[in-house]
């Protein structure tokens, strides 16, 4: 990584002095604080001058090593601390789990590192890792798995030995399988305890459809039915070197590490399968208000719209548009109106991430006391509408674009970040499609115009298609406020539908928890 910058503070003090001399306005000088060293502190921050900071995005090619024994690795040496950090990303996920075995990815992913190896019981493995103060973890999510190891560089060889054995000869010890199943079962029982969990789950159903693979949930029966054989098969199918991408950073020499990685992946004892493509058959719900009744004094609201993929040509335009609408925190419109103006919510936001494999969902959300849920929702909908009715201001454009450009170096602040950003790009195919993504990032942000923002707002956030999910106390939420008589049913062109809670162990709707729609 090349990063050159100059930041002498004497230089910036000097710059401030020059600036004041240049202004030479009496009224300005009067209000300035002359201090001992004779330079003045300006009244406003834009009067400060800063030395330039040049930052070049690191180039992935510099760290990229296609290993002979399978995976591509990103190798980033860094001698600052006596630590090594290794992450192995795996093409696998819950989408590859057969119907009826939901939870298999979670069990296999967790137990790989926790279930022992051929030469070590789970207990012996845990003890040894603890004594070395090494952190070994594994996990399989929706469409990616990972095994990670963070340890002191003096223990690297022993750690790599353990890593190899964990990935090639895991023990999946029976008592650990039984315990993990029990933990999953008890975690399931909490599915209706937090309104936030209910909201996240139902938002997924509404935005992608109940049949979509990502909305299949483990049940008591599916977890109960998973055998050790299922776990072993799932592991052997997907955990093989050419299905990996590796990120490694820390205290080592590059060439030595490359050789160690070659050894790590050499002579793998089994061959796996090539994973099928990730299904993209999402189904977005009909416009309307969807309500889940839950006895809490604050309602949670998610306003949903179909999203985009991140390779969409409008991706950068959408980034800026959403930043101005609700993505930019305290500089965004939704936060300003819902929180700062009205005091109606603590958190109020919108998010419009580009999906990697299929379009992800646009979400605008907040939490407000039951009686102001409908009113606050109407404010957010109105902000979305305003976004489509005209261009943003110059001030908004400037804050958003400068923000993205000036904080860009933060993406690469640590060597761990560098190794993992590039490994992820390799894993998701972005490196192959757009190898200069990060080199071009700031120029692409710079190129976004006010017209682009208005156009993508009209294209993607028109409020007439919104699906509005509300989780909270129905009796109070459906009451209007004396001073703001807006009701839930007035907010959407679609109907108000009450959704039932789901039985946490079967995920089947619980009869009687939904009543006839509030009209």
């Amino acid at each position, binding site marked *: 990584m090349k990063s050159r910058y100059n930041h002498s503070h004497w230089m910036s003090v000097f710059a401030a002095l020059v600036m004041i001399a240049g202004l030479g306005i009496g009224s300005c000088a009067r209000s300035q604080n002359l201090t001992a060293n004779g330079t003045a502190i300006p009244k406003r921050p834009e009067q400060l001058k800063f030395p330039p900071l040049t930052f070049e995005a690191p180039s992935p090619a510099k760290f990229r090593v296609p290993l002979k024994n399978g995976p591509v690795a990103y190798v980033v040496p860094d001698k600052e601390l006596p630590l090594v950090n290794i992450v192995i990303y795996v093409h696998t996920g819950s989408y590859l789990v057969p119907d009826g075995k939901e939870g298999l990815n979670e069990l296999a992913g967790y137990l790989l590192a926790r279930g022992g190896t051929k030469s070590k019981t789970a207990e012996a493995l845990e003890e040894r890792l603890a004594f070395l*103060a090494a*952190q070994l973890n594994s996990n399989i999510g929706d469409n990616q798995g990972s095994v990670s190891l963070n340890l002191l560089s003096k223990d690297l060889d022993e750690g790599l030995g353990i890593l190899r054995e964990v990935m090639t000869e895991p023990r999946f010890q029976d008592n650990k399988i039984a315990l993990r199943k029990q933990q999953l079962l008890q975690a399931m029982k*909490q599915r209706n305890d937090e309104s936030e969990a209910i909201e996240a789950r139902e938002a997924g159903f509404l935005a992608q459809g109940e049949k979509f693979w990502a909305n299949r949930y483990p049940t008591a029966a599916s977890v109960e039915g998973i055998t050790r054989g299922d776990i072993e098969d799932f592991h052997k199918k997907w955990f093989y070197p050419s299905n990996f991408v590796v990120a490694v950073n820390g205290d080592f020499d590059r060439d030595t590490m490359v050789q160690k990685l070659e050894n790590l992946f050499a002579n793998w004892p089994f061959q796996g399968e090539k994973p099928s493509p990730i299904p993209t058959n999402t189904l977005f719900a009909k416009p309307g208000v969807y309500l889940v009744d839950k006895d809490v*004094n604050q309602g949670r609201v998610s306003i949903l719209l179909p999203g985009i993929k991140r390779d969409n040509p409008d991706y950068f335009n959408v980034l800026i548009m959403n930043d101005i609408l609700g993505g930019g925190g305290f*500089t965004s419109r939704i936060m300003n109106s819902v929180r700062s103006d009205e005091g109606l919510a603590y958190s109020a936001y919108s998010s419009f991430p580009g999906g990697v494999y299929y379009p992800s969902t646009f979400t605008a959300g907040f939490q407000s006391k039951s009686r102001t849920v409908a009113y606050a929702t109407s404010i957010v909908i109105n902000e979305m509408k305003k976004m489509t009715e005209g261009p943003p201001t110059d001030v908004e454009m400037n804050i958003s674009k400068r923000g993205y450009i000036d904080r860009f170096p933060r993406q690469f602040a640590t060597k*761990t970040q560098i190794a993992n950003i590039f490994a992820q790009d390799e894993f998701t195919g972005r490196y192959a499609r757009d190898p200069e993504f990060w080199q071009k990032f700031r120029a692409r942000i710079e190129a976004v115009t006010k017209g682009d923002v208005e156009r993508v707002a009209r294209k993607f956030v028109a409020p007439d298609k919104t699906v509005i999910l509300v989780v909270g106390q129905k009796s109070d939420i459906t009451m209007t406020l004396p001073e703001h008589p807006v009701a839930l049913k007035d907010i959407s062109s679609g109907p108000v539908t009450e959704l039932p809670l789901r039985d946490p162990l079967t995920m089947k709707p619980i009869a009687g928890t939904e009543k006839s729609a509030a009209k």
Partner: protein
Amino acid sequence: MHLIISKRISKLLFVLATSLMAVHFASAQKVPVTEVTLDNGMKLLMVERHDEPSVSGGWVAHVGSSNERPGITGIAHLFEHMMFKGTETIGTKDYQKDQQIILEQEQVRDEMRKEEEKMRAAYRRGEIDDLMKPENKTPRWQELNKKFNELITQQRDILVKNEFDQVYTEQGGTGMNAFTSQDMTAYFITVPANKLELWMWMESERIRRPVFREFYAERDVVFEERRMRTDSTPLGKFTEEAEAMFWESVPYGWPVVGWPSDIPAISKAQADEFYGIYYAPQNITMILVGDFKTNATIALAKKYFERIPRGKKDAPDVRTLEVSQVAEKRMYAEAETNPQVDINWHTVPFGHKDSYALQVLAQILSTRTGRLYKGLVMGSQVATDTYAAQDSRKWAGLFNAGGEAKDGKTPEEVEAGVYAEIEKLKKEEVPPEELQKVKNDFAASEYRRLSSNMPILMHLIQNEGEGDWREINEAGKKIQAVTAGDVQRVVNKYLTKENRVVGVYTRKGSSQKQEGK
């Protein structure tokens, strides 16, 4: 149990907590801190680190909810929110008019407060059921509220909304946030390395001449924060009750976010008074970590921060000490949660000589290779998960342990299992290998915490806020020096029956079906 309220939803503190639970080492790495005291009493800590072109800057005001009193609980946290509302030149187009409107708003609010007194009296007589209900406000209050809202509308014309955030965002600032705990209020952000002077400008201005505009809307925001974190979560209200029950005399008994009655009653005048005492420079520590030159930074800090005059009075010390608990206290809670037990013992505050042995003890009991997991999760199988931690706060501390019961087992069985493990530790010293394993973990974490600017800043904030930043370099040695005898001694001394408070949680309702209604 340590409640931290942050201004925004942030994963940062979680990340920090995770990194704190990490490794340890015999030859710990020192954090090279330069300490300077400015002429006005403000402390400045600096850690030069040239690994990335940024500076993480933060400051600790040595004030938290433990400096409050009944009636104004939550004011330290509300104040944290107000510090983002701008200054005389940031946040408004017309300072004079802004001040005039704020003055008029206060006059209306004074009258509203008189009505609120009447409403509270009516509530005490049982004439109204809920002070928050719009229908329960007196006609006079509603009339005044209309008048107040007109003033808000006037103010909006000259307001530059969230300009403090705008300035930082436009200049590449990231992760701006703040938190309030019982012991401290801290503010932090990361700026590009070339913008250190912007940080100096912004932070000195908001300490020197903050303007608490939009005070009453922000009070409502804080109440929504309370609903979000406390009222609407399965355990929020129970945790609050457990804290209130635990602390006998030290002012940790009320929630950081404040009692529901106090948050809407805090006045701007009370906030002004609070600022005068607790935001004086001699009560503040500034901390910078990152890519700068120390000497030049000292000069710049003197220039910006020495403009702020030393406060006339030092903040008063908290004099009340925790009294000894003489009898076990128990809480039986029915909540929307799996059955579990949470046990707390009174122990020692930050920096106490026994706190290191208690930290080692916590590590011996917790983690997957710890005694509770081996004994209760893998062994007797009464629990599916267990934990233990020493929480050393500024004025007092506690030791916390507990776990979730396995289906078919009760919280009381988990509780008995925890006590059985503790009894073993009282009778027999921890073997050398086990003690070394735990110490190795502490030693390795001395390195892991140094991975980037922000985690280093957060460690310094935490240590300085609880009492002394030097602990960041001293604690490691003290932990390595803990002996098996020390551990046995602190278990016997603190983990006793009369010294504990126990929360037993069972699931509300007898079945999931009823749960759903």
